[in-house]
């Protein structure tokens, strides 16, 4: 049975699309048939991060309005065989998303895919609500920073009250915390909330920590999800996230400051 996973956060700019792209890619690299859907109608960006922006012909809203078939709108990823992208519309507004329409598309996708990753827009408006409504699992992307933590907490409240599973009284959505843009050095100096602080505040299980890294910007510049970059710490951290999600026992990495030599410590870099 296909699983629907929403990548959400409440706050914008914390790394939802980056995380969706790398997480979906990671699932596909492990042989799972995966589709990643951009729910940010009007502000499409997943296509850029996945590097398929020039291949968009039809979009999510076209399929909702029966202006194209799902097959026509799905874009096959260049790098992974098992991965497809369903882009958001750039011209319509989020009112185009209806519960019935989204449900119909998800049901159709469930027949062919193992995982359906829903990249949520920021905020708690229609697009965000539709992205999480049908979810079986949620990845809550949080930066170790006050406004992001508060908004994540708000989203957790919405998952627990306004999702289909909550309304039907079914088994609750399985929640996972992914902390992004983590800077161990600043945590050590007491300038940034630690992993344990964020875990304690949000009290949901931790799926992974992605360290702040220059490679994330390079990856989006190039349109290649950072998980493909084996040399990058962020890429490795996303691989770990996927393996933990698949149930493997992968220890947390990149939580502490790398040991530097005495000379470097005295003279700086």
């Amino acid at each position, binding site marked *: 049975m296909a699983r629907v996973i929403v990548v959400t956060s409440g706050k914008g700019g914390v790394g939802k699309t980056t995380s969706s792209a790398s997480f979906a890619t990671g699932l596909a690299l492990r042989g799972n048939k995966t589709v990643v859907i951009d729910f940010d109608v009007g502000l499409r960006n997943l296509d850029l991060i996945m590097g398929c922006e020039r291949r968009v012909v039809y979009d999510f809203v076209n399929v909702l309005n029966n202006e194209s078939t799902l097959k026509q709108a799905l874009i096959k990823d260049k790098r992974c065989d098992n991965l497809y992208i369903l882009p958001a519309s750039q011209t319509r507004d989020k009112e185009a998303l209806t519960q019935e329409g989204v449900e119909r598309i998800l049901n159709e996708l469930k027949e062919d895919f193992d995982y359906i990753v829903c990249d949520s827009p920021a905020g708690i408006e229609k697009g965000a609500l539709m992205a999480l409504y049908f979810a079986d699992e949620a990845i809550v992307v949080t930066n170790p*920073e*006050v406004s992001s*933590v*508060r908004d994540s*907490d708000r989203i957790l409240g919405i998952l627990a009250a306004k999702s289909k599973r909550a309304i039907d009284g079914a088994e609750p959505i399985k929640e996972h915390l992914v902390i992004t843009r983590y800077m161990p050095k600043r945590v050590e100096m*007491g300038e940034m*909330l630690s992993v344990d*602080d964020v875990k304690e*505040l949000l009290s949901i299980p931790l799926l992974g920590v992605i360290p702040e890294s220059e490679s994330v910007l390079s990856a989006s510049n190039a349109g290649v999800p950072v998980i493909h970059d084996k040399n990058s710490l962020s890429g490795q951290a996303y691989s770990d996230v996927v393996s933990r999600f698949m149930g493997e026992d992968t220890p947390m990495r990149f939580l502490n400051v790398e040991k530097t030599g005495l000379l470097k410590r005295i003279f*700086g870099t």
Partner: protein
Amino acid sequence: MSLLNYLRRKKKPTASVAKERLQIILAREHAGRHEPDYLPALKQELLDVVSKYVKVDLGDIKVNLERDGDCEILELNISLPEEVQEMLVNAD
């Protein structure tokens, strides 16, 4: 960080402040999470009814919903302006 920077450092750690503030605000927001959506509308309608007879502000109406085990208590508190209170006393 170089030694010089280290010696110059005087910044106070702020992460603990952030955590404390978040603990307080999240606790408060969790308490409000179970508040029904109709409370603001209820308040407004009460104000409409009461202001037909007495001049009161929205701020003079306090609506509190408390949960005590299985029991929910909806508490309404309307403070009347002083002149009305005097009128009431004089009428006695």
